[in-house]
């Protein structure tokens, strides 16, 4: 019996500890009003990304809004028929806004996670092994630094049909260098600590030492850069879409802005500009504010007094 209950008890303890961590994080964010506001915005954004397309009153691309006489409502100001007004092509701005959150969420989330995971792995391996592995990986990051992201992404997207996963992959492929460098320099200092050395001395393999002794100690900074990765990915996706290199089959906020800009209606149709512009600005800023709040805690050097 006891052999069976023991791992179970251990499991409960772990789940419990995890839950406490989550609660602590929440309590921590509540203390910082800006970070808390950021969290509310992120929550609302995730909700929009998941359910926005179902909430949209009309299909964002197919449906054309028509007035009383059956004529197409083009560039109509917000009214009862269309709460957020209509576009130059007679489409419902509210529906486009609601549906447009999803590609933004997908690219932001997976681009950010990909950036964080890739950068974290490279950083840990590079810093832990040192020597020629480190040299090789760091020169690789130098190379991705010297290939300018935006022009290269535009080039790649001209000969591959843009779709949302391709854009996500390109973004992660260019952004991983940021966390990689920071994580590596953290690992360099952790590697020299006594507990890592004693783990090695007591016969732990490289893999085990990296996974159980080094990685947990640099995880916070990895998470922080994953959060920044999310904001960068969202900004990059919106920028690409604005230049006309977005997924042509999906309505995204960046694409909405491109359409206003390209159709030359920015001057009149404020109702068409503001929802996607405010949406993008709000979500990227919120993610950064949450990151900043954590950075204050993670970075021991700026925690002097106070």
């Amino acid at each position: 019996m006891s052999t069976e209950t023991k791992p179970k008890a251990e499991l409960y303890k772990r789940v419990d500890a995890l839950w406490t961590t989550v609660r602590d994080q929440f309590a921590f964010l509540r203390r910082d009003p800006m970070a808390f506001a950021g969290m509310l915005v992120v929550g609302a954004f995730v909700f929009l990304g998941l359910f926005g397309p179902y909430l949209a009153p009309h299909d964002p691309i197919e449906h054309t809004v028509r007035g009383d006489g059956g004529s197409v409502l083009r560039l109509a100001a917000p009214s009862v028929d269309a709460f957020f007004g209509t576009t130059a092509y007679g489409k419902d701005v509210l529906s486009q806004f609601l549906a447009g959150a999803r590609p933004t969420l997908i690219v932001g989330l997976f681009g950010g996670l990909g950036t964080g995971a890739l950068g974290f792995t490279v950083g840990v391996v590079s810093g832990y092994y040192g020597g020629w592995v480190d040299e090789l990986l760091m020169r690789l990051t130098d190379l991705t630094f010297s290939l300018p992201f935006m022009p290269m992404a535009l080039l790649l997207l001209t000969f591959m049909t843009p779709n949302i996963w391709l854009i996500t992959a390109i973004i992660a492929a260019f952004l991983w260098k940021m966390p990689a460098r920071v994580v590596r320099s953290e690992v360099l200092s952790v590697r020299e600590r006594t507990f890592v050395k004693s783990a090695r001395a007591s016969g732990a393999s490289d893999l085990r030492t990296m996974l159980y002794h080094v990685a947990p100690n640099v995880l916070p900074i990895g998470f922080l850069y994953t959060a920044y990765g999310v904001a960068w990915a969202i900004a990059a996706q919106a920028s690409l879409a604005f230049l006309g290199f977005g997924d042509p089959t999906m309505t995204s906020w960046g694409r909405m802005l491109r359409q206003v800009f390209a159709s030359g209606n920015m001057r009149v149709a404020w109702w068409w500009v503001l929802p996607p512009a405010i949406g993008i600005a709000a979500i990227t800023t919120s993610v950064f504010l949450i990151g900043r709040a954590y950075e204050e805690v993670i970075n021991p050097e700026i925690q002097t007094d106070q």
Partner: protein
Amino acid sequence: MSKFQRFLLKRLAISVLLTLIAVSVIFVVLRLLPGSPFEALVTSGNLNQEQIDEIRAMYGLDQSIWVQYVNYLGSLLTFQFGYSILRSQPVWDVLEPRLINSLILLVPALVTTAILSSLLGMYAGWNRGSRLEKFSIVSTTLLRSTPVFITAIFFIIVFAYNLEIVPALGMRSIRATPDGYIETFASLDFLHHYILPFTVAVLYYSGDFLLLARNGVVEKRGSEFLKLHRAKGLTEMEQLARAGRNSMLPILTYFTLRLGMIFQGLILLEVVFSWPGIGRELVLAIQQQDYPLVQAAVFIMALAVILANLLADVLYAYFDPTVSTSGGGSA
């Protein structure tokens, strides 16, 4: 050879190697692109096969890919970029004025923001917990994390469309026909067009410098040398000046790195403001499949980054004695 010289030599070799690899990647990516601008000419039916061959030979497209590659390497590294296909003008003649237009917008903006935001950041860090610190952090975070084209759109809507203080587009008014750089830039009309994109660029980059400076001063605030200065009886401002001076290095390094990335970072700014710079030209060239122009523009952007990285590493190693010059010196 001193340690520093060895470091310098190694860093230089790496930069040269990186340039070669970056240039090769650009070559491969460009050859992967389907179609060519000639296809439009061919399908229009206005050319016969002989003329097509002649044009292809003129651009060296009839040779094997390896010969093309070697020629390409040679010409790029000697800054001979060939002819723009669509503008039928040497690429450099197209790019040079665009490059100047970009530099004249972006370099003063970066310098301005580096000085102003760093000073503000130091002051904010010194007064940690004050309302000024909180406000400056939130506002610069907003400006830094929002994609630059969205900030630009907001500014255009407010200052150009509603208040109608400044024009929304372009670098000179349409009627202006200036001759030469001096006539182009030394005019009130230019200044009128300049102020809005300049302001947006300054604000966009303010966040990084502000936070770097602020964190630097916060780190220094509890340190021993400041206690000494306080004991000596220096005023608050004098103490801040000393704490600030000691946090200059990361700011200087960061400034150098930013300078290298300046062309690629603000492509969208140029697009929104229709500023005739190198970034906007690149986007147009990609859309029109003008490869010689594209490869020259991407090459210039990559080269700028590589040179700036080199400079930043060397500066860091030179000024900071604690940095090991044996490798991995960049922060």
